């Protein structure tokens, strides 16, 4: 009962989401470039968190390969663009490449479970980063890769990248809804609860897991390629950043794992916190992220969406009643 309420989001949630999307889309007309940039980050991390949710949330596999897909997407996109492919086609090319990469790799890496899978997925990030910095002829090595800046001035570019990221986020959201209502979503939830049992009742666990892993890579590739065009410079250490690979699961956990809106809520809350609080303490940026993680795990294990607001309200109300009752009792005495 409780779980169902989140599994099939209520109409109110969809309305709120529509309002949020409109607000993001209207940002260039409402506020200056700083807020446009912020909105682009919200869309970007929203798309990444939704992607991670397929493997980490629905299937329950602790994947830390987000940065591998994002980095690969940004390098493929950047290299295609430098080879003269038009920008949007380069983004699509990166998406296809990263999806194929994940689908091929998934079959092998998903044989691992638990800690081994987690480590394998982190190692993937490290290996790709080292390849990017060693393969100097193609990637430019540690010097990084310059990508042509989009013509048309910063205002125009800001809008282009905002709407591109927003479109990716909407695609990821639509995919999540489709998965949520399909056999795939059901099967993944079974796998997350008990993989052997899921296998016993006839779920092709390997195919389902590979599908989830691939889905978790598709939009990461697109986001990576768009990001590369946006910042117009990528280097191995920031394209395959270990922080990114941790941040994205934390966002999804902050909102609520295995839900449609959890990752979006988490990503938005995270980006806003990062901008308003951490930006003031540059030296302690990572430590504050660490503290947020620790607090999240101890005090908000189910995420923001799993807080039972009604019960909380009821508790406050009953406490107020009790206090009122005690007050009248003393008056009578």
């Amino acid at each position, binding site marked *: 009962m409780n779980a169902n309420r989140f599994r099939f989001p209520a109409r109110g949630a969809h309305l709120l989401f529509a309002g949020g999307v409109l607000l993001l889309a209207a940002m260039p007309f409402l506020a200056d470039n700083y807020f446009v940039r912020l909105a682009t980050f919200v869309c970007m991390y929203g798309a990444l968190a939704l992607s991670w949710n397929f493997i980490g949330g629905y299937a329950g596999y602790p994947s830390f390969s987000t940065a591998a897909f994002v980095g690969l997407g940004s390098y493929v996109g950047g290299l295609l663009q430098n080879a003269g492919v038009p920008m949007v086609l380069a983004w699509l090319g990166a998406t296809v490449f990263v999806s194929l990469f994940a689908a091929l790799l998934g079959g092998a890496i998903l044989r691992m479970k638990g800690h081994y899978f*987690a480590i394998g997925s982190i190692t993937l990030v490290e290996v790709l980063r080292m390849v990017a910095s060693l393969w100097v002829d193609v990637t430019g090595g540690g010097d990084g890769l310059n990508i042509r800046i989009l013509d048309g001035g910063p205002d125009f570019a800001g809008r282009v990248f905002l709407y591109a990221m927003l479109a990716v986020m909407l695609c990821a959201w639509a995919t999540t809804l489709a998965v949520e209502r399909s056999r795939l979503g059901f099967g993944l939830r079974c796998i997350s609860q008990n993989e052997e049992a899921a296998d016993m009742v006839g779920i092709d666990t390997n195919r389902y897991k590979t599908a989830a892993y691939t889905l978790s890579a598709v939009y990461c590739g697109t986001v990576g390629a768009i990001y590369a065009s946006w910042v117009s410079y990528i280097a191995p250490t920031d394209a395959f950043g270990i922080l990114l690979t941790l941040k994205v699961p934390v966002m999804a956990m902050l909102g609520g794992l295995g839900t449609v809106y959890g990752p979006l809520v988490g990503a938005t809350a995270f980006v806003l916190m990062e901008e308003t609080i951490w930006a003031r303490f540059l030296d302690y940026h990572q430590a504050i992220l660490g503290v947020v993680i620790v607090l999240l795990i101890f005090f908000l294990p189910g995420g923001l969406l799993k807080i039972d607001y009604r019960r909380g309200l009821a508790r406050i109300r009953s406490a107020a009643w009790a206090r009122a009752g005690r007050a009248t009792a003393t008056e009578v005495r």
Partner: protein
Amino acid sequence: MSLYAQIVVNGLMLGALYACIAVGFSLVWGVLNVINMLHGSFIVLGGYLAYFAWLHWQVSPFVMLLAVSVGLFLLGFLLQYGLVNRVVSQPVLTTLTLTFGLDMILYNLMNVWFDATPRRISLDLGRLDLNGVIVPNDRLLAMLLALAMTGVLYLVLRSSRIGRAIVAVRMDRDAATLMGIRVGRVYAITFGIGALMAGACGVLMSVVFPITTNITGLLLGKAFVICVIGGLGTVPGALVGGLALGLIESVAGNFLGAQSAILVGSLLMLVLLMTRPTGLIGKRGYQ
């Protein structure tokens, strides 16, 4: 000929340190089923403490070995007792993210306090020349001490009361509880021992290599690789894995370059993980 002998000797000296790096990590992973992402930072913390004691008060690193061991044991014990124990039976994602978060705090604080300049203790103990194979004495001493610490841990696990309790918990937690072992305390002690070994290893490393906060991830990666090669939770496994990785890196580093040596290690681990999902000599049931 002497080139190959040199490569093997270098590999063994490196491997002894690697074994020392991995043995605590492997123990924590095997007994608690927790991946301690703090391990790399513990090593660097140990190295820094030894360096600054040597720089400011001329304390010998071999004296600091003892002090750092005690300090890090307490730090690890308290972290496990106060924080990690509360979520120790939850899914991998939770425990891994928690130690990752704690690592970020420690890493950040070290960066602010010590900054990331590479630092090394240079003792100038001279070197041995064995028929053209050069063995620097400080490295030799570090290697012997690393092996000694690993040996002591092996003996502690085999023959002391607390060691038997740790092994019992690793084999079967529920049965150990029924035998009257206080699992929470055993967990905390195990985590403390993991931190102790990491810190001690950091002290030894600071005598041999420059220490900087930037290598925490690298060290952690090596601990992973060794655990996958050698299997989890046993001292001999970590020793075999450490020596194997040391030799592999020494050979690959000599013929392909230092960066590629790390890549070879990571690729080897990925292949091993995919073909032998429970580790090369690991037992089933530790996934």
